[in-house]
C-alpha cells in the first residue's frame, strides 16, 4: 500500500517537475529576449548621446550590415525618428527620443527583475522536487531489496 502511494507521489512529482522545467525554460527565453532588447536600447541611447554632440552636416558612417558602412551627412542633429510599434514611427526631438528610450529601459528593467524573481522561485521548486524524487527513488529501491 505504502509503495503504491510512493509510486503515485513519484508519478505526480515527475509531472510537476516536467511542468516547472518547461516554465523555467520559457522564463529563461523571455529573460534572454529582454536582455537583447535592453542591449539594443542601450546602444540607441549611446547613439543619441553621441549625435547630440554632433553638428549639422557632420560626416557619419551608417552600418548597413556585414560590417559595411555608407557615408552620410547629418541633415538634422536635433531630430530623430522613433518607432512606436505596429510599423509606425514618429519624428521626435533628441531629448524626447532619449526620454522614450529611458522609459522603455526602465520598464524592461522592472519586467526583468520580476522575471528573474519568478525564475528563481521556479528553480527552487525544481531543485526541491528533484531532491524529493531522489529520496523517493531511494526508498523504493530499498523496499525492493
Amino acid at each position, binding site marked *: 500500500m505504502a509503495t503504491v502511494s510512493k509510486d503515485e507521489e513519484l508519478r505526480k512529482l515527475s509531472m510537476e517537475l516536467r511542468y516547472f522545467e518547461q516554465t523555467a525554460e520559457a522564463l529563461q527565453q523571455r529573460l534572454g529576449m529582454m536582455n537583447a532588447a535592453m542591449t539594443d536600447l542601450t546602444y540607441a541611447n549611446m547613439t543619441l548621446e553621441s549625435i547630440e554632440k554632433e553638428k549639422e552636416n557632420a560626416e557619419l558612417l551608417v552600418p548597413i550590415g556585414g560590417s559595411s558602412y555608407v557615408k552620410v551627412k547629418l541633415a538634422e542633429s536635433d531630430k530623430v*525618428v522613433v518607432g*512606436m*510599434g*505596429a*510599423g*509606425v514611427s*514618429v*519624428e521626435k526631438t533628441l531629448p524626447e527620443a532619449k526620454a522614450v528610450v529611458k522609459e522603455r529601459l526602465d520598464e524592461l528593467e522592472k519586467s526583468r527583475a520580476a522575471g528573474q524573481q519568478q525564475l528563481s522561485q521556479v528553480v527552487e521548486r525544481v531543485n526541491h522536487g528533484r531532491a524529493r524524487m531522489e529520496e523517493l527513488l531511494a526508498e523504493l529501491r530499498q523496499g525492493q531489496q
Partner: protein
Amino acid sequence: MSDEISKLPPQVQERLLRLQQLQQTLQTILQQKQQVDAEQAEIDQTLAELEKTADDAVIYKAAGALLVKADKAKVNADLTERKELLGTRVTVLARQEERMRSQLKEVQTKLQEDLNPVSAQSQQ
C-alpha cells in the same frame, strides 16, 4: 508505446488518433489567438502613443524595409481598421476554440468509456 496502442481495438485506435488531431488543432488555434492578441495590444499601444503626439507631427509608416511619410489621421484610421479586423478574427478563433474544446471533451469521454467500460457503466 506504439506496440501497446496497436493492441487496442481499431475503433479505440481511431478515437485516439482523432483525440491527437483535435489537440493539435486546438494548439494551433490557441497560438493564432495569442498572435492576434499580441498584435491587438501593440496597435492599442501605438494608438495611445499617437494620441499623445501633435496633429502636425511628422509620422512615418513602415513599407517593408523603408519608412514612408504618412498623415497622422490616415495612420490612425488604418490602425483602427486593422484593430477591428483583428477583433473579428479573435471572435472567429474563440468560436473555433470553443468548438474544438467541446469535441475534445466528447472524444475524451468516449475514450474513457472505451478504455474503462466497467467503471464507466458503474458510474452511470
